[in-house]
């Protein structure tokens, strides 16, 4: 709105000309692309979850061939024995989830994460529940070709990734252990991240976060299988 005290044509003309800048077209595509790597996905955005939807037909075909190859590799490897997840791999998995680099699905509870993951992959190992879980996102990942279900939690403001696999698929590391309430936990670290691995009820569980191992153990204590 122009100043009501200004009646001059000159003032009004300049006000109107500046107002036309509002219609100036801008190309926000590069900005959007740059922001995508820093912001979490828009809820319900299938393109973010399924990157091949953005590919042209030729690339989509190449991606299909690649996916077929990966699936074959997974099938072949599923007949091999249990694998050992390195701390660097688990740290990478956690960092990808926290930064939004990994395609995830937004959830608001572990229960909804289990529903979502089961819908995506019927063989998905069930994630044990937690009271007041503060689940934010979930996804299926692969560690040395073994499927792992991941859920990103927030505990006291700190992001924690809980990764679950079938116990038959994963080996526990030869790292220092702590036993609490009859359960043995293997403790590892990678940079600022601490990791706690254990096996319970036929499932391999790994908790990763910047919290101290004791705090991770408090969370692990509350897991309900």
């Amino acid at each position, binding site marked *: 709105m122009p100043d009501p005290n200004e009646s001059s044509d000159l003032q*009004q003309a*300049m006000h109107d000309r500046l107002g036309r800048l509002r219609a*100036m077209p*801008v190309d926000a595509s590069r900005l959007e692309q740059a922001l995508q790597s820093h912001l979490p996905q828009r*809820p319900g955005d299938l393109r973010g979850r399924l990157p091949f939807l953005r590919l042209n037909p030729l690339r989509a075909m190449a991606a299909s061939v690649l996916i077929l190859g990966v699936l074959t590799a997974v099938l072949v490897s599923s007949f091999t024995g249990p694998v050992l997840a390195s701390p660097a791999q688990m740290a990478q998995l956690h960092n990808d989830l926290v930064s939004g680099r990994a395609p995830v699905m937004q959830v608001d509870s572990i229960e909804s994460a289990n529903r979502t993951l089961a819908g995506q992959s019927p063989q998905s190992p069930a994630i044990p529940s937690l009271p007041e879980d503060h689940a934010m996102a979930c996804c299926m990942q692969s560690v040395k070709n073994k499927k792992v279900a991941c859920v990103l939690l927030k505990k006291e403001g700190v992001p924690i990734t809980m990764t679950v696999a079938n116990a038959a698929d994963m080996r526990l590391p030869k790292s220092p252990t702590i036993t609490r309430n009859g359960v043995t936990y293997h403790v590892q670290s990678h940079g600022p991240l601490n990791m706690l691995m254990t096996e319970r009820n036929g499932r391999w569980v790994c908790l990763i976060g910047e919290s101290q191992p004791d705090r991770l153990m408090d969370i692990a204590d509350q897991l309900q299988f």
Partner: protein
Amino acid sequence: MNQQAAIRRFYAEIWPLRDVVLRTAQILAGNVPDAEDLAQETLLKAFRFIDTFRTGTDAKAWLLAILRNTRLDRLRIRGSAGHISLDEMAGDPADEAYEVEQSVWERPADVLNKFSDAEVIHALQALPEEIRWTLLLVDVEEIDHVEAARMLEAPVGTIKSRAHRGRQMLRTALLPLARDRRLVREPNRG
């Protein structure tokens, strides 16, 4: 607010305004790479501080306030923050030169519409930062004087005065171009 709600709110209320942020950044920065960088930082801050955005308030004004602070921080780092006083502004209405300048614009709307957006933006670049912000808020984005005054931390009267002076200064900055193209009447000499 939980993370889910924050994400939903950001995409519902802030994301649709990304063009406004980028356009304003382009007018301020004068080049696309700097503008994209400034707009990106602004939108990331908006996401980080989405908890502080009050529902029912003007999202555009909130976002432009973040853009302004981000821009000022950058100018401070470069040592070129444009704090000016009214005394430093050119184009006093009582000035004889201004009277002459005013008299040459016969059909100002027609003349001003002959300038491209790029030419107007280039002229805006020559204005002091606070004047430019006043014109951006009041004239380009049509934010009311009271809200603009709150955002620019100045009395409403000062905003009105800056808008008035800013338009004069912008006209003066465009005058050489208008003369080159013979769009204005030359004043009688002698």
